[in-house]
């Protein structure tokens, strides 16, 4: 009943490997993960891949399909042309363990470095009172299934191993934002912490993370930008603000480095944002001086500033 289709799958381990060709039967309604399973069952029992729920809920089956970071279980075969070759490769940003399985421990380390929820002192279990509208902001971020596709896509670490130490990545920016917006979290330094310790400043709002998020979390609009804005608020300096607006890009004092390999269509090697707070205590608010953000996104150009109606973030009222 099914048709034979052509697949290319990366096989190998940390010592190297290559793309191998397979012809596999495909039936109506199947997803890419079904094909991997059929390969395991019929041709390559030792083909390594992760999966659990097969319903887009656990975030285990992250791979790159035709170069795009996707969940294998949520990529329907019907989205490809009948005669299209489907190429499946492991996540590029993390070291390969074997075949489609990568070492994602980077993310767990970053999770450990993000300060946990601080319960409000003096509020007993059972006494927590919060309004639905107030929890919804954070709930959006708690939808995260930790597929790490956003982490994989973010150019700050994708092609820059050296940035990994200082940069937590979009998954942990939304964690910080979630706690910042949590109506009862007792810490009030989430945004400063994100700037100072999580490398929020490296992010130049390319929005690639938002585009790959299978949970459709508005990572950039609803988490990163508000977190940045609020830091800016605190250090708002009208002169710098104005200066940024009237200087043309080429008049700015800092040279914008041209990234290597910027021309390659799928390269995400883009400029990282310049250091956040300069020695003179001022900030580069690149969002305001640039018309495009940090070079092209592999998924199309992003416009900036963002239209106000797409910013769905409202600042919470102060709570007593």
């Amino acid at each position: 009943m099914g048709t034979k289709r052509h697949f290319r799958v990366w096989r190998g381990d940390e010592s190297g490997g290559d793309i191998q060709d397979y012809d596999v039967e495909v039936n109506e309604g199947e997803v890419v993960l079904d094909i991997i399973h059929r390969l395991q069952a019929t041709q390559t029992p030792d083909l390594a891949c992760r999966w659990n729920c097969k319903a887009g809920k656990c975030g285990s089956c992250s791979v790159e399909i035709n170069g795009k970071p996707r969940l294998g279980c949520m990529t329907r075969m019907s989205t490809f042309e009948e005669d299209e070759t489907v190429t499946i490769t492991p996540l590029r940003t993390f070291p390969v363990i074997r075949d489609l399985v990568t070492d994602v421990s980077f993310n767990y380390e970053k999770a450990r470095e993000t300060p946990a929820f601080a319960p409000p002192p003096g509020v007993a279990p059972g006494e927590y009172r919060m309004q639905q509208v107030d929890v919804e902001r954070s709930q959006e971020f708690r939808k995260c299934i930790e597929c790490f596709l956003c982490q994989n896509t973010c150019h700050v670490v994708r092609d820059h191993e050296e940035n990994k130490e200082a940069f937590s990545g979009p998954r942990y920016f939304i964690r910080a934002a979630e706690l910042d917006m949590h109506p009862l979290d007792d810490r009030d330094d989430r945004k400063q912490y994100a700037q100072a310790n999580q490398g929020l400043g490296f992010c130049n709002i390319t929005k690639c993370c938002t585009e790959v998020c299978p949970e459709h979390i508005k990572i950039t609009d609803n988490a990163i930008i508000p977190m940045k804005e609020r830091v800016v608020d605190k250090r708002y300096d009208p002169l710098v603000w104005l200066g940024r607006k009237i200087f043309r890009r080429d008049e700015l004092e800092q040279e914008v480095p041209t990234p290597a390999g910027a021309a390659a269509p799928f390269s995400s090697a883009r400029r990282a944002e310049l250091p956040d707070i300069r020695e003179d205590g001022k900030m580069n608010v690149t969002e305001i001086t640039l018309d495009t953000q940090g070079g092209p996104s592999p998924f199309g150009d992003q416009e900036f500033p963002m239209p106000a109606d797409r910013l769905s973030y409202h600042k919470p009222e102060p709570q007593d």
Partner: protein
Amino acid sequence: MSTTARIERHLYDVVVIGAGGAGLRAAIEARLAGKRTAIISKSLFGKAHTVMAEGGAAAAMGNVNSKDNWMVHFRDTMRGGKFLNNFRMAELHAKEAPERIWELETYGALFDRTKDGKISQRNFGGHEYPRLAHVGDRTGLELIRTLQQKIVSLQQEDFAETGSYESRIRVFSETTITELLLDGDRVAGAFGYYRESGEFLLLEAPAVILATGGVGRSYKVTSNSWEYTGDGHALALRAGATLINMEFLQFHPTGMVWPPSVKGILVTESVRGDGGVLRNSEGKRFMFDYVPDVFRKQYADTEEEADRWYTDPDNNRRPPELLPRDEVARAINSEVKAGRGTKAGGVLLDVSTRMPAETIIKRLPSMHHQFKELADVDITKEPMEVGPTCHYVMGGVEVEPDTAAAMGTVQGLFAAGEVSGGMHGSNRLGGNSLSDLLVFGKRAGEHAAAYGETLSKRPKVSTKDLEAAVTTALAPLQRQSGENPYGLQQDLQAVMGDLVGIIRREGELTDALKRIQELKLRVANVGATGGRRYNPGWHLALDLRNMMIVSECTAKAALEREESRGGHTREDFPAMSPQWRLVNLVCSLDDGGDVHLERKPLPTMRDELIQLFDRTELSKYLTEDEMSRFDANAESTEAK
């Protein structure tokens, strides 16, 4: 000796096998008791099955309907389980669930809220009042993430104190335990391999908590993932513990039936709780024809009354779509068999005509997403096609209710969560699992920690046992040309699905047992190609051994129990028998590695608990003997 000399060794006070809700909650408790704790998980941290739970966690907090309390919850749980539940577990569960849920908020959980800012609670099949704490339809994700983050926060505390995140609690992810090692009857450690490298490791600990979840992978149509191969059940058996209620499997009434590749994936019960209705291919709302006598009093018999219930639950009876799962699953099965099903073999579940599109998207976001992405169906416009899918195993390790300690000959072994048995009787109510994980996870952690302290010396792992474990684990790799494990798994799934499925018959069960014996011989010769690094073929080859034992337990117990009750339906014995209610079927392993089955009396409910029920209801479940005892007691309390 040389094979075992190089094995990585770790020393812990408590080893928790399983990183789902039960395992994580247990680990938190053991760590809070000051014990060095290890958590082992076959998949990555935060991906365990619990992540897939959708509907919610049942706890009688009374936030939405203040009439709710633990006694009502207890009653519902016993009714759902058809009175076969271990009453003490059901009691502890009903009493402690609210505390366990509130505690999650102090770890940072964000449940949906009521107007006055409390945790909102939703209706669910079998629960008399709105009782399920929830977050949209991703409650399991919230639960596991919260516990995961609590563990991280404990690790941060430890880091601040000792300079190491892993000084008191360490997560071994993508690590599979294949054997428990004993010193006499006492647990001494757990042996397993890192999936990533294929290297072996030994965790020495006086106390081990099993929290490995269920067995659904033995069925073809299932909502369960590859992890659910019954490892914990099999580990317990091999260590000398016993399993109860293994004949009871829950087939969730609403799994997806189309497209074929997603067959089995769950459609949450909240779809019905929030107003979704079931129709057959003739458009009839058929559930009204399937209300069993024992439930007549609580369920509406007209569509009008059923519909009024959503807005006025105090003055109307509930819609029959919300009957316990086994009833709904059987009803769908009958409709399809009678030729009133869809082409793909399901029935229609419809919300599109019941509420506005925005409400659907708001209340059931992940269902909307799931159908859109996987089946190209917009549930705000069309009905869903659904049919029964293997979902949950009520049976599991027989435990001491208060301490979660495993029964049988072994000491130092504890079990919590889906791997344990007794709590849900013959059928689990939706939402009772997530709360079960928390209540008994905590208890297991607490008592495992305390048990360690009672020992004067640490039990020791013997080199001989360790060598045997290594040999067993390596065996499939030594048979590179042995049989393909995937084929074997499919054969087992076919046997279980066809012969030990929703509706069972004596002849088929006998046949199934014969085939399982044949499969067992084939499993002994299963091979795995490739090496030890992240080799799923090898992993499956090892899991198969566990799936076989557990399937044998299910088939044996199903053959023995000559009645129909909850998750066990015998076509040849369609009625529920009060005599059989007195019996638990207990499985253990004999010396030859075969399953041995024994009957054991069910513990008798304490008087003050049994008197929570009304007489007419009890008379449908209890024997005449029990009823006269009940009457005598009722009189003597009145006299007082």
